[in-house]
């Protein structure tokens, strides 16, 4: 089926634009970049249609990548139903966002560089989802991390952007460390990194081993998917251009952890403690990030914390054994969160770079397309039936209730907060009176048509794409009893959230400030994101930097290593300085030394011959 064409097409776009893009006009750069991704999407469609029902895994083996002892790693791609879903999301949403980026990036410098990186990202993301073994998945995993770093730091002349890029890269290293250890453990115990072989042997392994592997994989997933305690990089990642936030930091890359843990379900189902850990990390992250999102003033920060929170939901789904529900939320989230980010980008574009919610307001009539499309995403994420987020979130919450009721209750409270912060952002942006100074203008069609496509998907995505039914054969069957009484509760929480937001920001605008001053400590804590960055800085970053600087650099490197090397040099120099005086150039002084030396030698021999040892004989 030529699966290799899927990732190669964007890679070709990257190579062409990356090498020659500087000399191309924008139209050519667009054609190459968009063409690569759209063709990949088309090829995905053709492949999936050709594969039919996909009841078994379809594998294409290309070549042996690493052969060393018993380690055999092939460059193999595999497609099953889970991969099919991911391929469609990545290339589909990716195409839409690429098209949008034409309009958004129109006035930015480094145009070709942006599209080259985006294409490279698509390549690595497609390798990640197509990979048929852990190591190839890891290649994609690291590659998307690299592209994320490059695109967060796209405005590299700004200090905060490069810092944010570094932060993302370094925090992800911690996760990758866990992932690497998991791969070593898998190879040592199963003798292979192939999904098929590993998952075939997994049921016969001990629970302890599988739990260890599962927890280490979870560490990797926490880094990539921005879960507690490694989520800190994602909010800062908003320093990149908005299409990047939508594509990489909302729709695709950050969901790689969810994909990877779902892909590894044969390991997890035999490791209940690891599953519990996933669920607890997920629900804690969901609640924690949503509470921070309540009070943020930067429109992209609100959606960034929302992304962290929604990823937490997906982890809850995976951790509760409802893998298909987690993937379902991944898909719907890709629609509505990409739309929210692109909409936010459209607002920022309209206001010529303004991101602060306090300087917006009343934009409803001025940028109607943006308003209406974002409204679709807002109702979808708030869980209003029958829009997409409602279905997937409800499936996860149902599984959570079945797993542990307290998770369900925390989940619905989070759902209420989600509805609140999204509508708070909407009301502050589009309602009331305009508080800014820029003259707002509606975005061009190349931007709002992608918004409209995503809006349609956000509205009907849940009804159209019944992912759990499609993935029924991919995951172990899970008996979740129908519980019709739960659905109204979560819907009610969502509606309450919307109502409170309306009350506080439309009906009585003064209420928000009075509440903030009434609960000053709570507000300050939330506004400062629980001081997590400061705590990490004080407990981890400062000691590591200080230790590196004073102990390793100044102490070990400059003191010990440089000191001993320079010491040897200085010693030779000073000894030479003394010996230099012997070479006076005066022949008679040399002769004197020779005489002196020979007399000394004769005397020494004479003394030695009188010693009791019997001299030289």
């Amino acid at each position, binding site marked *: 089926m030529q699966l290799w064409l899927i990732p190669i097409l964007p890679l070709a776009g990257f190579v062409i634009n990356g090498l020659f893009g500087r000399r191309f006009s924008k139209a050519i750069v667009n054609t190459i970049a968009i063409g690569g991704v759209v063709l990949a999407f088309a090829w995905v469609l053709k492949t999936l249609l050709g594969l039919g029902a996909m009841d078994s895994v379809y594998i294409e083996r290309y070549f042996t990548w690493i052969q060393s002892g018993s380690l055999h790693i092939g460059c193999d791609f595999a497609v099953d139903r889970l991969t099919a879903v991911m391929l469609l999301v990545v290339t589909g949403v990716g195409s839409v966002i690429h098209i949008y980026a034409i309009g958004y990036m129109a006035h930015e410098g480094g145009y070709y560089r942006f599209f080259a990186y985006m294409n490279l990202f698509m390549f690595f993301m497609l390798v990640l989802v197509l990979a048929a073994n852990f190591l190839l998945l890891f290649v994609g995993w690291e590659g998307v991390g690299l592209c994320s770093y490059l695109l967060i730091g796209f405005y590299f002349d700004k200090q905060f952007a490069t810092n944010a890029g570094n932060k993302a890269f370094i925090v992800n290293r911690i996760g990758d460390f866990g992932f690497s250890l998991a791969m070593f453990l898998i190879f040592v115990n199963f003798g292979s990194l192939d999904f098929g072989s590993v998952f075939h042997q997994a049921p016969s392994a001990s629970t302890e081993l599988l739990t260890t592997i599962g927890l280490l994989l979870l560490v990797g997933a926490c880094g990539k998917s921005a879960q507690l305690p490694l989520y800190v990089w994602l909010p800062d990642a908003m320093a990149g251009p908005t299409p990047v936030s939508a594509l990489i930091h909302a729709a695709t890359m950050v969901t790689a952890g969810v994909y990877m843990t779902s892909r590894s379900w044969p390991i997890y189902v035999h490791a209940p403690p690891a599953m519990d850990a996933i669920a607890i990390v997920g629900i804690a992250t969901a609640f924690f990030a949503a509470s921070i999102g309540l009070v943020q003033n930067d429109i992209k920060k609100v959606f960034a914390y929302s992304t962290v929170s929604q990823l937490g939901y997906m982890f809850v789904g995976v951790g509760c054994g409802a893998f298909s529900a987690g993937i379902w939320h991944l898909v719907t989230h890709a629609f509505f969160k990409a739309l929210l980010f692109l909409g936010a980008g459209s607002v920022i574009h309209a206001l010529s770079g303004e991101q602060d919610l306090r300087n917006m307001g009343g934009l409803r009539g001025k940028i109607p397309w943006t308003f209406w499309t974002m409204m679709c995403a807002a109702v979808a994420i708030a869980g209003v039936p029958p829009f997409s987020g409602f279905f997937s979130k409800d499936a996860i919450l149902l599984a959570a209730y079945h797993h542990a009721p307290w998770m369900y209750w925390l989940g619905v409270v989070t759902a209420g907060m989600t509805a609140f912060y999204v509508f708070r952002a909407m009301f502050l942006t589009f309602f009331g009176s305009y508080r800014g100074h820029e003259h707002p203008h509606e975005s061009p069609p190349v931007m709002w048509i992608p918004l409209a496509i995503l809006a349609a998907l956000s509205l009907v995505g849940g009804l159209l794409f019944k992912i759990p039914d499609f993935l029924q054969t991919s995951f172990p069957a899970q008996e979740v009893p129908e519980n019709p009484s739960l659905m109204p509760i979560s819907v009610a929480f969502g509606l309450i959230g919307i109502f409170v937001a309306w009350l506080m920001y439309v009906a009585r605008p003064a209420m928000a400030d009075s509440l903030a001053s009434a609960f000053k400590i709570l507000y300050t804590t939330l506004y400062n994101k629980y001081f997590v960055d400061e705590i990490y800085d004080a407990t981890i970053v400062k000691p590591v930097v200080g230790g590196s600087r004073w102990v390793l650099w100044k102490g070990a490197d400059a003191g010990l290593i440089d000191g001993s090397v320079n010491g040897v040099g200085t010693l030779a120099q000073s000894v030479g300085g003394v010996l*230099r005086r012997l070479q006076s150039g005066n022949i*008679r002084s040399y002769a004197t030394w020779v005489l002196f030396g020979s007399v000394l030698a004769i005397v020494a021999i004479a003394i030695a011959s009188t010693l009791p040892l019997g001299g030289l004989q």
Partner: protein
Amino acid sequence: MMTQVPISWFLTLSAILFALGVAGFLFRRSIITVFMSIELMLNAVNLSFVTFSYQNKSIDGHLYAFFVMVVAAAEAAVGLAIILTIFKNRSTLNIDDIESMKN
């Protein structure tokens, strides 16, 4: 039969000649004199070689003496050539003025 001259006389003479050579080498400034002092030292050594050869009734000492003479002849040829060149270039034979190998 002639009264034998004691061995120690030869050796003492050799030591005196060698010491004269050393003294000349150390204290004279003219390169020619220094050069002659070296020859003197070589011949002093030759004398002790031959003496020991005579005393030990062995041919080895003679052999060494001839070797030393051959080397000394070669050295004299090369050394005089060097001295001539030095004089041509510097118009001096004072050994203390020739110190370009310094530093």
